[in-house]
């Protein structure tokens, strides 16, 4: 619509305006940079936490634990991450970490394969990679901090639901994304356990809420409609269980359909108190982040290499030993119920 002449003159002015805008943001950028990694010569001990996504209270808690640990051993802590839990968006953060030359990267994988190559490249750039919460293939990382054994997690959830529904009837699983390594491992083990020890319980469907609150909420509604006979829901993810509890608490199914899984006490407190949820399980995510940070520190300083049998100190948690497949185990899951929930704040 513009004449050529106007267009050209427009171009010149655009260049100037935007140039100015740019210099401004460029300056802001450099300022932020100086502040961020201004830890002086300790650049080696700069550790980045890369959760599955930002805005997830579970990771807020675990990363706070990491920050606490890093402060204890005098490194610099940074949290980066995508807003949606997808592997491709994690890749660009891994690449940036490699470019920045951070000492260690603590990551919870959205996909065991997809981010593997990026992690490999980061490692060859000298970044120590620790996975926590959700693992990648063992050969793409230096160490995996396991919150609890998969068997232990599956077991506790199966026990809880079996007890709550009287060991018979339909149950469904509300998981995170279909590719979450840890979720899938647990679900598989749970199904084996049901088949082996609870023949009267039928797992009718596994649905995926993508660790998105709204999706999980709507999926819960859909589950209850689709399976009128449903007795219980297991949601082995903190986002899912909170969303499911919120739906149940205002629905006609409250108290009729049992809900358990993995959740944080602060999120679940209300629903335990109002009777929607009887009991649920979790490890302490703050401890998990805390341990992951110490492990990264041990890798960076060369205290350990990730070999089986290596041991390292993890501040207030004491000493840990590296197990097979370069895995460190945090401990057993903990069951929260109306009795003890008041003792926790995370």
């Amino acid at each position, binding site marked *: 619509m513009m004449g050529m002449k106007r267009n050209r003159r427009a171009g010149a002015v655009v260049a100037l305006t935007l140039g100015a805008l740019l210099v401004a943001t460029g300056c802001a950028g450099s300022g932020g940079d100086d502040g961020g990694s201004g830890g002086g010569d300790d650049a080696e001990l700069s550790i980045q936490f890369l959760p599955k996504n930002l*805005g*997830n209270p579970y990771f807020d808690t675990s990363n706070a634990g990491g920050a606490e640990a890093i402060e204890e051993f005098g490194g610099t802590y940074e949290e980066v991450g995508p*807003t949606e839990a997808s592997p491709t968006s994690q890749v660009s953060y891994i690449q940036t970490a490699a470019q920045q030359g951070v000492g260690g990267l603590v990551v919870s994988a959205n996909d065991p394969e997809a981010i593997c190559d990026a992690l490999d490249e980061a490692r060859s750039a000298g970044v120590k990679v620790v996975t926590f919460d959700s693992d990648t293939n063992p050969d793409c990382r230096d160490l995996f901090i396991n919150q609890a054994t998969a068997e232990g997690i599956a077991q506790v959830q199966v026990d809880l639901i079996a007890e709550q529904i009287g060991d018979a009837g339909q149950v469904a699983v509300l998981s995170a994304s279909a590719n979450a390594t840890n979720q899938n491992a647990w679900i598989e083990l749970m199904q084996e356990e049901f088949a082996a020890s609870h023949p009267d319980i039928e797992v009718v469907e596994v649905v995926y809420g993508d660790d998105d*609150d*709204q999706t999980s909420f709507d999926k819960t*509604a859909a589950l209850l*409609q689709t399976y009128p006979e449903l007795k219980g829901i297991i949601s082995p993810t903190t986002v899912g269980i*909170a969303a499911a509890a919120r739906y149940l608490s205002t629905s006609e199914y409250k108290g009729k359909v049992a809900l358990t899984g993995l959740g944080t006490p602060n999120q679940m407190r209300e629903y335990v108190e109002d009777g929607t949820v009887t009991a649920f399980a979790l490890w302490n995510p703050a401890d998990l982040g805390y341990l992951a940070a110490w492990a990264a520190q041990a890798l960076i300083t060369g205290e350990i290499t990730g070999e089986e049998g290596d041991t390292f100190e993890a501040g207030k948690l004491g000493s840990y030993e590296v197990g097979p497949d370069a895995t460190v185990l945090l401990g057993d899951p903990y069951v929260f119920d109306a009795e003890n929930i008041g003792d926790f704040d995370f």
Partner: protein
Amino acid sequence: MSATLTPVQPGTSGASRIVRRIATARETGIAVALVLVIVAATASNPTFLFSSDGFRDLLLTPSLLLLVAVGQAFVIITRSVDLSVGSVVGLTAYLTGRLFIDIPGIPIIVVFAAGVLLGGLLGAVNGVLVAWAKVPALVITLGTMYIYRGINVAWTGSDRINASDLPRDFRGLGTEHLLGIPILTIIALVVLIAAAWYLRNIRGGRELYAIGSDPDAAHLYGLRVSRRIITAFVVSGALAGLAGVLYAARYGTVSSAAGFGWELQAIGAAVIGGVAISGGVGTVWGAAIGAFLLLTINRALPILGIDDFWQRAVVGVLILGSIVLDRLLAVRQHRRLIAQREVDR
């Protein structure tokens, strides 16, 4: 096409005209499709409709999208499009949570006003840029979609609003009902009726159609085109803002991803409901029914035994189907009008 298709001689009785109008209205087809979906889903699982939760969710789930789609219809009728509504929903939803957290005891009505105001303001920014810079809305709102979402994420960061941060009364709005109808749905219906009434019976509303039908003619008529376009964007923004507040009430949890992708759902709902992307045609009733159809299909698919991953594909087919249908109807009507002229000679 919502207007009567066949020329009616003056003097035909009003009643028969109304019947014919309803029978031939574009919205009727979509409403029938909606009923069919509900019937099919209910037949395969009665709780889809005949349980208190089923009935509630049937009405509740589409209510938020309905608001956004009504706003979108305003904009599309004037031959524009608003891609920024999803981002506006996200921003106002977070604002809602923040207000409750930062100002304990703030009256709920004030929060509603703030959300609608912020939404209207963001819409006004769109409208002013579109009307005065004379740049297509597609480009402007693509830009502001990025900007609003970016501001939202920067403001929210990794924070999120939890259900426990919100007063119980407020969350009650999202779940409680009056005479069996969820409050959220009642709010949406009130807005819908007001919008429909405005578009049909008020000069400003009719002028929106005129502008969308032929912007140059509107200019020659001396209509205040810029002002009307800005109005349409303000309405779209304000309704997205209202939807944002209600989003917080309904879902309780607000992260920076709230409302992500809603713009396409809203445009899809409007287009399916017969609001022509080329402006001047369609009603908010159509957009509302479109919103209902979209989300009801979403819920019905798993019940009908179709993996709900296919939902988006169904949406695509619906959008394409309705624009192709509209096109065919328009071509047919055009032919008939031309033939009519031939006969008149």
